[in-house]
């Protein structure tokens, strides 16, 4: 018990609280600014936290990432420019709500369920870390292969509008993932002798290009001098959130659960959690036809999931030193630096530090409520800025946000190229969200397939011979069979005339 008191003493120190507050503001700002991303927020924090004492260093990372993952929902809803790949799954849905004049409800729901999902993930981290870590550690390349397949299947479920074009988009994303050094044999592919292409197609500049830059290009042609963005009624953020909770409390629990489990799997993380939970929500919904038209249901699932995944990603990191996502990869480095060597013993050797991390997690999620509320309010002010000032400024942020991912012009080149390509695709009714998922999952899929083939001596049965892999495999293939059957029995969707999205 004394360890807990010590931990409280460590956290409720003026300096530590100041660091937490500062990084919360930083995370909110970077996450909410179109063109800047949560990934960037974490990457930029590394040098700053490197030489801090353990508690403020971990406090800064925990707080900033929690804020940024939520704040990524803000530009997604307001401008259709998701701040993180985790928000990309439901960016269209939130933006449709905004177009219907329901921005306040969309933002209120995002905020409340992000906070609740975050707390859910932390509660699991505190109560069940060792148990869940046991499950996570049993995942080898066979299980990850099926998990990646399941993730890709979700893109097809989510697809609004034209499923054929959604599938095309997914394949294009997977094709982009092939660029660079291949994950198995170490051979350069599609690099044409260019050094930068050896590093592959980085997905953050691609995300910024596909969503933000293509939106800027569209914005430029529809610019009415001095015109403003979608006008919104003045209302309270919390109106209607209670009703949503009453109606969709089960979606919240399910989303948080999926987020926690997928988040605890090393290498999967918040992005996949958000896609999977959104797809599950649509699949099991009583009103699947409303998805994609500005329907709140899927947002409840997905926004709870990506925040709960954040806390859960610390489970394998703390217990076994395995990074759960790109954020905890950095965290593990910081833990070693501060003499908190990850492992089951960390709970015995430095319990006060672990408790301090837990307390900071709870504080961060509670802080998210007022700060998120303030961020939404200020972001709405930004929407009042005339678009002829807003768009050029967003362009500068896009450039800086892409540049910071590669620390070279390559990130910006990629952003521009992907921006034009994304604009072209959307003009032709090809949705870009599946492309992002394909890019995120491509390497995971290929790496684990090749590695598994070698381990199984080229036998495909190896993919089903382990208990968890077998279950996942049968489930995935059952899903495919079901989809194929549905595809054959129902009439194919007619070609549409309207460009999808907006």
């Amino acid at each position, binding site marked *: 018990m004394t360890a807990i008191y010590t931990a409280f003493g460590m956290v409720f120190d003026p300096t530590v609280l100041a660091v937490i507050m500062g990084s919360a503001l930083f995370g909110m700002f970077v996450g909410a600014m179109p063109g800047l991303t949560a990934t960037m927020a974490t990457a930029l924090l*590394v*040098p700053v936290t*490197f*030489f801090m004492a353990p508690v403020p260093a971990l406090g800064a990372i925990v707080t900033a990432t929690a804020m940024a993952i939520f704040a990524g929902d803000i530009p997604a809803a307001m401008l259709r420019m998701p701040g993180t790949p985790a928000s990309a799954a439901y960016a269209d849905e939130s933006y449709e709500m905004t177009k219907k004049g329901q921005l306040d409800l969309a933002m209120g729901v995002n905020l409340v369920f992000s906070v609740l999902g975050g707390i859910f993930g932390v509660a699991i981290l505190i109560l069940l870390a060792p148990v869940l870590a046991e499950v996570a*550690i*049993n995942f*080898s*390349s066979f*299980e990850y292969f099926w998990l990646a397949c399941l993730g890709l299947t979700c893109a097809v479920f989510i697809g609004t509008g034209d499923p054929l074009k959604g599938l095309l988009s997914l394949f294009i994303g997977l094709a982009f993932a092939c660029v*660079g*050094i291949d*994950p*198995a*044999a*170490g051979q*350069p592919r599609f690099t*044409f*002798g*260019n*050094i*930068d292409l*050896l*590093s*592959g197609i*980085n997905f953050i500049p691609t995300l910024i290009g596909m969503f933000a830059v293509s939106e800027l290009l569209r914005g430029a042609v529809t610019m009415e001098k001095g015109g403003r963005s979608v006008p919104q009624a003045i209302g309270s953020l919390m109106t209607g959130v209670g009703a949503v909770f009453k109606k969709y409390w089960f979606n919240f629990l399910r989303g948080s659960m999926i987020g926690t489990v997928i988040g605890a799997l*090393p*290498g999967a993380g918040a992005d996949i959690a958000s896609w999977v939970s959104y797809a599950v929500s649509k699949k099991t919904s009583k009103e699947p036809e409303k998805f994609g038209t500005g329907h709140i249901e899927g947002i409840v699932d997905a926004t709870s999931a990506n925040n709960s995944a954040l806390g859960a990603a610390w489970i*394998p990191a703390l*217990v*076994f*030193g*395995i*990074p759960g996502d790109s954020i905890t*990869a*950095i*965290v*593990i*480095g*910081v833990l*070693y*630096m501060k*003499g908190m*060597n*990850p*492992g*089951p*013993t960390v709970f015995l050797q430095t319990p006060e530090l672990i408790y301090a991390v837990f307390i900071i997690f709870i504080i961060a999620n509670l802080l998210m409520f007022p700060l998120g509320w303030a961020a939404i309010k200020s972001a709405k002010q930004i929407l009042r800025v005339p678009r002829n000032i807003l768009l050029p400024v967003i362009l500068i942020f896009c450039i800086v946000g892409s540049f910071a991912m*590669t*620390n*070279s*012009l*390559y990130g910006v*080149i990629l952003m521009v190229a992907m921006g034009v390509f994304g604009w072209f695709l959307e003009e032709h009714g090809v949705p870009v969200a599946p492309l992002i998922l394909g890019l995120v999952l491509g*390497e995971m899929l290929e*790496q684990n397939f*090749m*590695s598994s083939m*070698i*381990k199984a*001596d080229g036998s495909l049965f190896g993919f089903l011979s382990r208990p968890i892999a077998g279950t996942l495999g049968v489930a995935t293939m059952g899903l495919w069979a079901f989809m194929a059957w549905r595809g054959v029995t129902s009439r194919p969707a007619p070609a549409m005339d309207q460009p999808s999205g907006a």
Partner: protein
Amino acid sequence: MTLITRRNVLKSAAAVGAAGLVTSPAIGQAKWPTRPVQMICPWGAGGGTDAVVRIVSALLEKSLGQPFNVVNRTGGSGVVGHSAIATGAPDGYTLGIITSEIAMMHHQGLTQLNPSSYTPLALMNSDPSGVQVKGDSPYKTIKDLADAIKAAPAGKMKASGTGQGGIWHLALIGWMLGMKLAPDHVAWAPSNGAAPAMQDLAAGGIDFVTCSVPEARAMLDAGRARSLAIMAAERNPQFKDVPTMKETLGIDFQVGSWRGIAGPQKLPENVAKIMNAELKTIYDSKEYKEFMDARGFTMIYADAAGFGTYMAESDKQMGVALTAGGLAKKPA
């Protein structure tokens, strides 16, 4: 490619301009550094290499009074960052950390760059490869494992640790050659680094992992893995119980992932001189030692000339292992 070329041209133009302005070497000597220095790291933030270059940069910043900014230029198995250091303007404001991959990649045809493409400044660390098995594995000693490998048919046993042709794959090849076995007697399952490989080991997907002991540390502490031997001349004081391969199997094979500070070719002499002295001081400092001990990294130092020789030897060794493993090819 055009882009890189253009950038190089610009940078060399800038360098020529700078050289033209600062004609007197006396002024140059007194004046470095007068503005922030970029320390390029070819590997990601939070990793081992990143940690080493950050502590070195922080100590340099303290003693030289100018910011030493660590810039991560990742990707392409390290090619991107290594290229950025080699093609930087040789004015002393672009330096970086180079790693063992620079002695490997040109054999594999990934780049033309090799250890002689740099001005070596100092070798700061080298982590030898260890051999790790699952915690409940029947192999209690490295001898058990070696016997099992010899008894098994070729390709039956599986190992991992990094990607195909990566440093820990070469460690495996070197060990196999040392036991007079075919280099691919144990099949290599490529992974995305040491941490995923260690997880796969714990999940029962592979038989053993070759990677450095600090990279395996969390799993070792958790009792999910055991380290049987390291491929080094002597034991690591941080992990005293792990014997060397030489004392147990009599195979004198040493391989490790090394890290050193370097700059582009033709670095001004005064910059090299200042850096050599500073890096030696840093290596001997209490801060550096404490930091390296905390991470479990093995300290090893060589001055500029020594680092050059060390890299040349490493280059030869990697070339042999890569050729034996059928992984080498002439650059196109």
